[in-house]
């Protein structure tokens, strides 16, 4: 269950920036091809935030879709699954979006300067 390690990473990334300021909301970007399942992260989030400034924070997800560019015909298209195949029949495609895995922003529970 790598979502637990990844979700622990959310706490680390956020507290590295906001320290001990209580956080009311966290916005994550989890691409549809990232190999990470938001529901599993939600489940882990409650566990790993207990006793941290993120405890009780609302979790929001941006879910960018997978996109690829075909090197054969030049077309841009949506990738619904990780099978790399263009409509033209070429498998020589490059994934250009969908693998994102990042913390976008947080909303602080109180108005306080973050250094």
């Amino acid at each position, binding site marked *: 269950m790598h979502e637990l390690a990844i979700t*622990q990473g959310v706490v680390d990334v956020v507290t590295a920036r906001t320290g001990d300021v209580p956080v009311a909301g966290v916005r994550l970007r989890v691409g549809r091809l990232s*190999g990470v399942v938001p529901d599993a992260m939600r489940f882990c989030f409650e566990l790993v935030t207990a006793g941290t400034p993120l405890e009780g924070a609302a979790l929001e997800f941006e879910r960018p879709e997978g996109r690829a560019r075909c090197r054969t015909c030049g077309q841009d298209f949506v990738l619904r699954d990780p099978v*790399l195949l263009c409509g033209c029949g070429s498998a020589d495609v490059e994934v250009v979006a969908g693998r994102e895995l990042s913390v976008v922003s947080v909303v602080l529970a109180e108005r306080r300067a973050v250094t």
Partner: protein
Amino acid sequence: MCGTCGCGGSDVRVEVLAGASQHGGHEHIAVHPHPSGPTGDVVEIETALLAKNDHLAAHNRAWLAERGVVAVNLMSSPGSGKTSLLCRTITELGPLRPVAVVEGDQETRLDADRIRATGARVVQINTGAGCHLDAAMLARGLAELRPAPGSLVFVENVGNLVCPALFDLGEAARVVVVSVTEGEDKPLKYPTMFALADLVVVNKVDLLPYVDVRLDRLAEHCRSVNPGVRVLPLSVTTGEGMQPWRDWLVAR
């Protein structure tokens, strides 16, 4: 970052096997603290979740490059034959190039003992509940292993086709081992792992007569998630395919 799946860092153990290393003190890989940012109710973060791991991986990569050491990360589901492949490879490669191994398993030092029997230097990392190695663990493992300059270091990841794919270790190449008894659909079911492979080794081809698996279809599935990836059929048991595998390694 030793916080791994389900366990928290304290569970991770790094152990040098007797005779494998004459280590005097630890070597540390430097980690810089990173500064912080702006003010307000909403704080923009825009930081990759694996940034810390990727940063440590970059340190490992630099550390390895300074010593002319090439690291190869071996990943597969449990039992595909990673340790068997390593033992045979070390024996065959022995005179050509010094080899050392970092073994990752949840528990036991069984695999490290098998490697040690070949005479190669080996460090066992037990991840406890963790289901993959991360860059911090490899940094600790490398500091203990102290591989000889110019050597080849194999990292045997925890047997798991899911998580190890997400964690860059700082390796020079990723090899996915899949055995024919696992079926031809694994690349489609675990695309993230196969998509990032520099080489796919298809092991246990000696068992092909007994299973309903076709090599061409398995290779096709690998390429559907990783166009152009090299697929190398091999049998550790019979030695078939070992020559191209050695050639691939020597070319790293």
